[in-house]
């Protein structure tokens, strides 16, 4: 998710079986790798929202967007960048941690405005929310310790102001 060619698109789809496969196929047929994919029911449960980040190695995403819009179950498909949208991601990070380094790790947690959601004698689970760059930066600092497990939700995004997501 560090790549500068990464694009994020928000797709509103009809909440039906198979729609995820149809959307995924538009990417895979062109050799696009999906970096992150978040799917959840919309405010109206008849619809679902997909937020997809992908790297493109053959130009921009305009062809993909048109192919997605063409799918019968797609309501709309909009590409967003950081300037016109709020982007958030949540990560849970389990770090090996004992009495010798607990204070250092908790300092990092504090610095990134994150919090501990689990703690025992051998490890700590950190919950961090923010844009993906912030999570990446925190992970760099945690490289000095032993990260046991990492789970990221993938990017979710909402257009600013009157724009539609």
């Amino acid at each position, binding site marked *: 998710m560090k790549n500068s060619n990464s694009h994020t698109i928000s797709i509103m*789809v*009809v909440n039906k*079986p*198979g729609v995820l*496969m*149809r959307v995924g*196929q538009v990417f895979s*047929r062109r050799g696009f790798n999906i970096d992150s994919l978040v799917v959840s029911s919309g405010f109206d449960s*008849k619809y679902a929202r997909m937020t997809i980040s992908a790297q493109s190695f053959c130009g921009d995403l*305009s*062809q993909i967007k*048109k*192919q997605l*819009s*063409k*799918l*019968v*179950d*797609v*309501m709309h498909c909009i590409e967003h960048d950081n300037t016109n949208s709020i982007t958030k991601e949540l990560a849970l990070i389990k770090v090996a941690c004992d009495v010798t380094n607990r204070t250092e790790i908790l300092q990092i947690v504090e610095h990134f405005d994150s919090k501990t959601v689990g703690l025992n004698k051998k490890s700590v689970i950190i919950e961090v929310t923010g844009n993906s760059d912030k999570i990446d930066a925190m992970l760099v600092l945690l490289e000095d310790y032993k990260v046991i497990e990492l789970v990221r939700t993938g990017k979710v995004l909402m257009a600013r102001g009157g724009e539609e997501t």
Partner: protein
Amino acid sequence: MNGAEALIKCLEMQGVEYIFGYSGGAAIPIFDALITTNTKIKLIQVRHEQGATHMADGYARATGKPGVVLVTSGPGATNTITGLITAQMDSVPIIVLCGQTISPMLGKDAFQEADVFGISLPAVKHSYLVSETTDIPRIVHESFLVASTGRPGPVLIDLPKDITSAEAEFDLSPELDLPGYTFPKNGDSDTIKKIAKALSKARKPLLLVGHGVVLSKADELITKLAERLNCPVVSTLLGKGAFPENHNLALGMLGMHGTGYANKAVYECDLIFSLGSRWDDRIAGNLEEFCKDAVKIHLDIDASEEGKLLQPDIFCHGDASLVIEELIGYCNKLDIDPWVKKCAKFKKDFPLKYEQSPDKLTMQEVLDEFNTLTEGQAIVSTDVGQHQMFAAQFMNSSRGFNWLSSGGAGTMGFGFPAAIGAALGRPEEIVIAVCGDGGFQMTMCELATAALYKLPVKILVLNNSYLGMVRQWQELFFDNRLSGVDMEGNPDFVKFAECYEHSKGFRITKPSEVKKVLSEALAYNDGPCVIEAVVAKTDNVYPMIPSGAGYDKMLLEAPTEKLDKPTGST
């Protein structure tokens, strides 16, 4: 009423005349409903599911109405995939109904279970796995709408056996639920005015007519537009007939094996206006070189075609009929007499030609004679390969819906079953299937189907005992190392034809027999006939623009020097 009966009722409501079907365990309730509903829909009993899909496809291409296929689960359904991709690539509306194992067994490797919904996804415009019996009417009506509107395409409905067997109360005309589905009608008026302005400024304009014009039933309008502008017209393989090929503004097919005069005009034009065509690689060749300095205008019903291969100067999103109709209102006769004269001169200087000698039978001569005898009025379906290109060059189409050929997918085995579909859809017309010896053998089991229903399809098998087009490439680009192209072991096609009741076989071995035998075949209408023409083995198709090359590299005849390996798609 059970689910299967509701299905048949809804097909009746959609005006379905024929179902091309092959039964099996999971489809029994649906075949049963064909009897219990006393439906007027006629079941056409095929011999292989692939044939059923091509028949439905040929029916749709010849009539403009969706063709319907009914097969069973598992292998029955997977045999339809080639037909689905053929229809998908050429934007043809077909509906494929598949029986499926009972819902509780889905995903549990039941007998004859295949994940048909999953397997078919990339080959359909849309698809359904039915989970509620009462959903059947809505899904059927949605399928017909989706298949036949916008850019048409195939729709698959997977029907578990318990769903089709269940009794229920049905609303046979329910509201459709397609909130995400839209398709364009009129184009944007400002864009259409821009097109008119660009045309008015052009000195060497060309109209490029594709399948979209046929599908939109815009053949009369395109003729009106060309005549209003006095603008020459080239056509794609699938656009054949949209503009009458005997019109003095018609330059015929462009592209890899297009006419010399069409390709010369494409190379020289200063504006090219594609209507319902998608700059396919068989047309554009080298995208960087294609009409490099010409203004490019693109009209398409599918927004995702804009800039897919080539960035046009003007893109108009809309239905060809409606856009052309509006455009005509903004257009006047163009002051381009020198260009029109030049195109006429191209026609004179670079005509289609072939070698005629009493000892050598060529595909072109047979096709040319067939065209003369039928006055260019027959419905012609083709297979894929050399015979297809020669048919495109020598069999004229005077109207849309008369030329049925697998363009995008290039499906061998398409031609003959497609002709069966066309013969059922338009029984009053002459239907000719032009096949090679290779392609015909892929689906020739359907001769049983044609014979059973006594369909007077004329199957012309141009037999050179080779996969001719591949052999041509091996000769030109692979030092004539022939690999996997020799059709050694071909059957006696005449004997084969005659082993079915109502079916007849003819053979042509020399030029002097062509007219006589073809006339006899045209006079035989009690069932299908196979006309085997034993043609020269190693003729090549020209003109030819090697794949991926520019139009300046067109070969009008056999090259004298060794050619580089082609750089374009297959």
